[in-house]
């Protein structure tokens, strides 16, 4: 089969006899004459969105569908004694009530944290934990009957904060974890940091707090489940990762995976809030199995706040030793408030340290991370997953250091930027980096050098920079299997259908898929139909998170499309009697580059290929390169390549009230190559919006009643109105600069853009507030009362006063590359035993 031949050079309409060596997928050249890549073309799915014809999960229904409501715990922490559904079952129209007894099998996103039950069976762990599900003929009846379910609890002590979690050995929220009520502890020493600090000219220490916040997608979660006459279960759900839901359904319901189909329609936003498999998805499937009827569940906005999996509230302590203006040692400690379940938490805690090293040179690095359990909705991945918190800390910390050193913080960053092709202290491999270009771009655009410190009291400029992964190097759940696959089907009319498991959360991944296939095959983007987000109709894709879809699905799409192109080229060559190497694919034609009139239409080429060797269907897949870190825990952080961002924020601060008004933001993002510059800018501005909203006001905060009167611990404001996020009014003008230095890892050189530009915004704002008023708010969000409190404080600072005592384990000792390491820990005996040939 032609499919198996070596991939031909690419990209795009270039003669195949190009004698340059065949580049790896993603290699870039000057890329002359690209037809679709880099053009501001309309996104393939945008008409349906604008006209309202796109069908989101909640738009799906079926004749005879029943409706489900979850009965949720009203107590934060308790043993579940009994669930009495008799009153609910007596209501006319109620079809069944499910309880924890129907779900004996635990599930969870990460293999190491299988700690959730679709409905609680022995304990409840937060207000909102589901204990029963009522299925009825209509939604109102289900809702009314749900209120009649009687649940008996034996209350347990409420654990509300990480400090309480660390101090409470009993009761435990879970019976697993690295310490009582501590989910995970991690500790790494990349070189001897205390020694480095001892030898430094100056040592700086800061404590920071980053409040938790939630994703706030406009689309609320909804799912519809039904069972085919042949027993096959189908679930339509607003999920970012159809394949994780598929896996969780198979596990928790003990069903053969081959009999389950999960469909993820386009989503109205996810931002990480729809990457976990959720209890309602499993319970609604069970309800369909039990009743034999389609069953629908649509969560209310309040319930979305309870699903959460958002940003972890994080306390941080940073210590940095500086010698001759450079960092000789840097230490980060983080304590995360994980909420009631594991979720992605093991990864989240690693991420609060993993990317600390990839922006500025540091000789040695030390990281300690702790994730606690508390009786609150579980935290998980939100845009930037675990990295906005330490990024906020680091960039504000550096601003203070630069102030003390008397150097311009922009210059310092430029001088100390990690150079390209570097393996950094914790063994992450940096390939291309646009960090310096980004910094220079925002410095220039904002008039930084001329304007900073000269805007008068109450107005200020702040700068920060950051980096993010372009896809994770290691898969959480699928071991060594490819992270994605793309399948193409070419039809006799010249149409191309691209199948992939990826789901479009609004970020534009469907568009990327169509665009890349069209580019390689030389057809119009509109001639490519994409079929995505369906576990039965496309190969596995790990989903829309981790900024991974463009790079992974994109490279797989290139591979699949090139294989198709090869088949067409072979057939067209025979028909046209020119060597395949002289054929060009462009403008919907396949033609001889030396005699362009001599050619076939694309449809004719497909027909010739079919006549020659049967139906034209090809596949492509992608696995990231083997990560450089070889120590345990080093699987979190490696990426095929990193994106870089920088931002300058201009703020107007009201000294009398502490109120802030952000006047303008300049942001530059190293995207490698913008496959669609308009869509890319949209992602940048969206990230800036979210970062600024977190920086100014968002808080997933909880309310406790006087402990003498009540154990209650409830979400303070589970509503769109009272959970404060930016409106148009507060959103400033954003000047976006795309820095394009193509990276060999990305399709056509592209890196991520969906998350990175969020990261510099909160610290840039904090630094701008300092420039405006001379105060430091070492916390996010920076609310008016904190600004006023800082103005009134003797040290002109508002922020955490203390950092808790944490029982840190013995650290893994991993010498940095320049201290003779090989990426492994020198003291991981357990691991060494497993490594062949390792000495005891």
């Amino acid at each position, binding site marked *: 089969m032609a499919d198996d031949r070596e991939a031909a050079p690419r990209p795009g309409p270039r003669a195949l006899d190009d004698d340059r060596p065949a580049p790896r997928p993603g290699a870039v050249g000057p890329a002359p004459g690209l037809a679709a890549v880099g053009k501001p073309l309309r996104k393939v799915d945008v008409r349906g969105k604008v006209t309202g014809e796109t069908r989101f999960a909640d738009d799906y229904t079926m004749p005879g569908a029943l409706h489900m409501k979850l009965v*949720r715990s*009203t*107590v934060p922490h308790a043993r579940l004694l009994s669930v009495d559904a008799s009153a609910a079952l007596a209501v006319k129209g109620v079809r069944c009530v499910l309880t924890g007894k129907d779900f004996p099998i635990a599930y969870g996103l990460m293999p190491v944290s299988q700690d959730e039950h679709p409905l609680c069976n022995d304990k409840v762990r937060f*207000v909102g934990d589901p204990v029963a599900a009522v299925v009825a003929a209509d*939604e*109102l009846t289900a*809702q009314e009957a749900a*209120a009649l379910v009687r649940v008996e609890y034996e209350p347990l002590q409420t654990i509300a904060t990480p400090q309480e979690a660390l101090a409470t050995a009993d009761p435990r929220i879970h019976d697993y974890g690295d310490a009582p009520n501590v989910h995970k502890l991690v500790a790494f020493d990349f070189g001897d940091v205390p020694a480095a600090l001892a030898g430094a000219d100056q040592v700086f220490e800061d404590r920071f707090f980053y409040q938790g916040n939630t994703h706030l997608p406009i689309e*609320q979660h909804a799912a519809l489940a039904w069972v085919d006459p042949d027993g096959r279960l189908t679930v339509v759900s607003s999920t970012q990762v159809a394949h994780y839901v598929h896996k969780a359904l198979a596990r928790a319901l003990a069903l053969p995976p081959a009999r389950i189909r999960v469909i993820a329609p386009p989503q109205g936003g996810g931002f990480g809030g729809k990457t976990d498999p959720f209890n309602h998805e499993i319970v609604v499937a069970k309800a369909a199995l039990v009743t034999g009827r389609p069953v629908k569940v*649509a*969560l*209310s906005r*309040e319930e979305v706040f309870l699903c959460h999996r958002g940003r972890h509230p994080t306390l941080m302590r940073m210590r940095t030793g500086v010698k001759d203006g450079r960092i000789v040692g840097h230490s980060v400690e983080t304590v995360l408030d994980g909420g009631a379940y594991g979720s992605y938490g093991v990864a989240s805690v690693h991420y609060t340290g993993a990317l600390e090293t990839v922006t500025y040179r540091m000789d040695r690095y030390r990281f300690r991370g702790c994730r606690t359990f508390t009786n609150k909705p579980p935290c998980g991945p939100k845009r930037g997953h675990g990295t906005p918190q330490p990024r906020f800390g680091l960039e504000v910390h550096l601003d203070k250091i630069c102030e003390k050193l008397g150097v311009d913080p922009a210059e310092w960053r430029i001088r100390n930027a990690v150079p390209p092709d570097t393996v950094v202290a914790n063994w992450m491999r940096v390939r291309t980096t646009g960090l310096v270009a980004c910094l220079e771009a925002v410095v220039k655009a904002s008039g930084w050098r001329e304007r900073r410190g000269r805007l008068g009291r109450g107005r200020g400029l702040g700068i920060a920079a950051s980096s993010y992964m372009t896809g994770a190097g290691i898969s959480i759940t699928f071991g060594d299997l490819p992270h994605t696959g793309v399948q193409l089907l070419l039809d006799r009319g010249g149409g191309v259908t691209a199948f992939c498991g990826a789901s479009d959360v609004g970020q534009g991944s469907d568009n990327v898929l169509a665009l890349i296939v069209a580019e390689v095959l030389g057809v119009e983007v509109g001639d490519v139909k994409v079929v995505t987000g369906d576990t039965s109709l496309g190969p596995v894709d790990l989903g829309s998170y981790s900024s991974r879809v463009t790079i992974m699905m994109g490279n797989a799409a290139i591979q699949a499309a090139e294989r198709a192109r090869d088949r067409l080229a072979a057939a067209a060559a025979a028909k046209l009697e020119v060597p395949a190497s002289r054929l060009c694919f462009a403008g919907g034609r396949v033609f001889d580059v030396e005699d362009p009139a001599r050619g076939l239409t694309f449809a004719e080429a497909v027909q010739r290929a079919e006549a020659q060797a049967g139906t034209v269907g090809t596949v492509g897949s992608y696995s990231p390169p083997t990560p450089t870190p070889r120590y345990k825990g080093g699987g979190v952080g490696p990426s095929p390549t990193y994106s870089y961002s920088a931002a300058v924020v201009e703020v107007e601060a009201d000294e*009398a*009230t*502490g109120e802030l008004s952000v006047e303008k933001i300049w942001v530059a993002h190293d995207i490698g190559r913008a496959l669609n510059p308009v869509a890319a800018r949209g992602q940048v501005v969206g990230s800036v919006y979210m970062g600024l909203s977190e920086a100014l*006001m968002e808080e997933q905060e909880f*309310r406790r*009643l*006087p402990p003498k*009167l*009540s154990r*209650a611990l*409830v*979400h*303070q*404001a*589970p*509503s769109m*109105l*009272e959970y*404060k996020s*930016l*409106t*148009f*009014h*507060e959103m400033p003008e954003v000047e976006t600069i795309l820095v394009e230095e193509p990276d060999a890892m990305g399709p056509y050189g592209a890196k991520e853009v969906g998350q990175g530009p969020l990261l510099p915004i909160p610290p840039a704002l904090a630094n701008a507030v300092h420039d405006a008023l001379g105060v430091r708010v070492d916390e996010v969000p920076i*609310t*008016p*009362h904190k600004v*006023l409190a800082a103005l009134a404080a003797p040290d002109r600072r508002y922020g955490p006063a203390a950092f808790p005592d944490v029982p840190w384990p013995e650290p893994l000792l991993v010498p940095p590359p320049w201290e003779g390491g090989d990426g492994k820990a020198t003291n991981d005996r357990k691991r060494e035993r497993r490594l062949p040939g390792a000495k005891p």
Partner: protein
Amino acid sequence: MMRLPRFRYLAPASLLEAVKVLGDLGPEALPLAGGTDLVPNMKRRQQTPANLVGLRGVAELRAVSGDAARGLTLGAMTRLAEVERGAVAAGWPALARAAATVATPAIRNTATLGGNLCLDTRCSYYDQTEEWRRSIGYCMKREGETCWVAPGSDRCWAVSSSDTAPVLCALGAEVTLRSRGGERRIPAADLFADDGIRHLTRRPDELLTAVHLPPVEPGQRTVYLKLRRRGSFDFPVLGVAGRVRLSAGGTVESARIFLGAVGSRPQEARAAADFLVGRRLGDEETVREASRLATQIAKPMQNTDLTLGWRKGVAREYAARALRELGS
């Protein structure tokens, strides 16, 4: 999603019919105007009237008459989007501004002036779903015993959060209430009671039919300054409403100041108003003292957005800004 509870919907076609059904049903019914307050409250089961009396078909409630010289009468069903503009904006700019700061443009196209005055009092322990309130054992305002804002207290401290209410009080406006038995016209300020639960003096069988703005006097200045988290969407955490009459020379001849969102009813700052009479607003010392006096009466509690300490701390500054605006 959250579903409305079951209820009966009545759609009277005239004012007479409307007050008749209200009279028949009494506390079993609530009037429904734009529904932007009542409907979400019903979804959260804060209010669960068995009957809704829809006012949409009552043409009399939309009537607007009068002018700046004679005073203006606005039917209770006048939408806030209309109050923002036209005659109100020209003669009583503070009222137009208050209306324009309510919620969002989409809501103001539906929300009415009458509904804004009769808006339920708000509290962050109360404006929550049924499940949420069950999780805290409810509170005194509905189904519970304790007030979580002030656990020792025997009253509810839910907050009067209407933007137009303090302005209408400051303007000295009046309202007409009509029942089957007849009509009464009372000062707007008398519509409100200092209690988070029984916050209106309106009887259940009464309909608010009209709001009467007094004639615009020469030298009249009005102001409304709203403090809230964001520039749109949010309820006030402080509203400063003022009306003064200035002499030709700029001396204050009369003054009325009301604060919104710092108590269960609009709070009159009488001492501040009295202090201003005979003084000039251009004088910074006067402004500072008046704003101190004005905010003395504010009783903010920890049951709205933003921290209590901050709201207390900036109240005076905001009052001063409002007074400066009156004088400028």
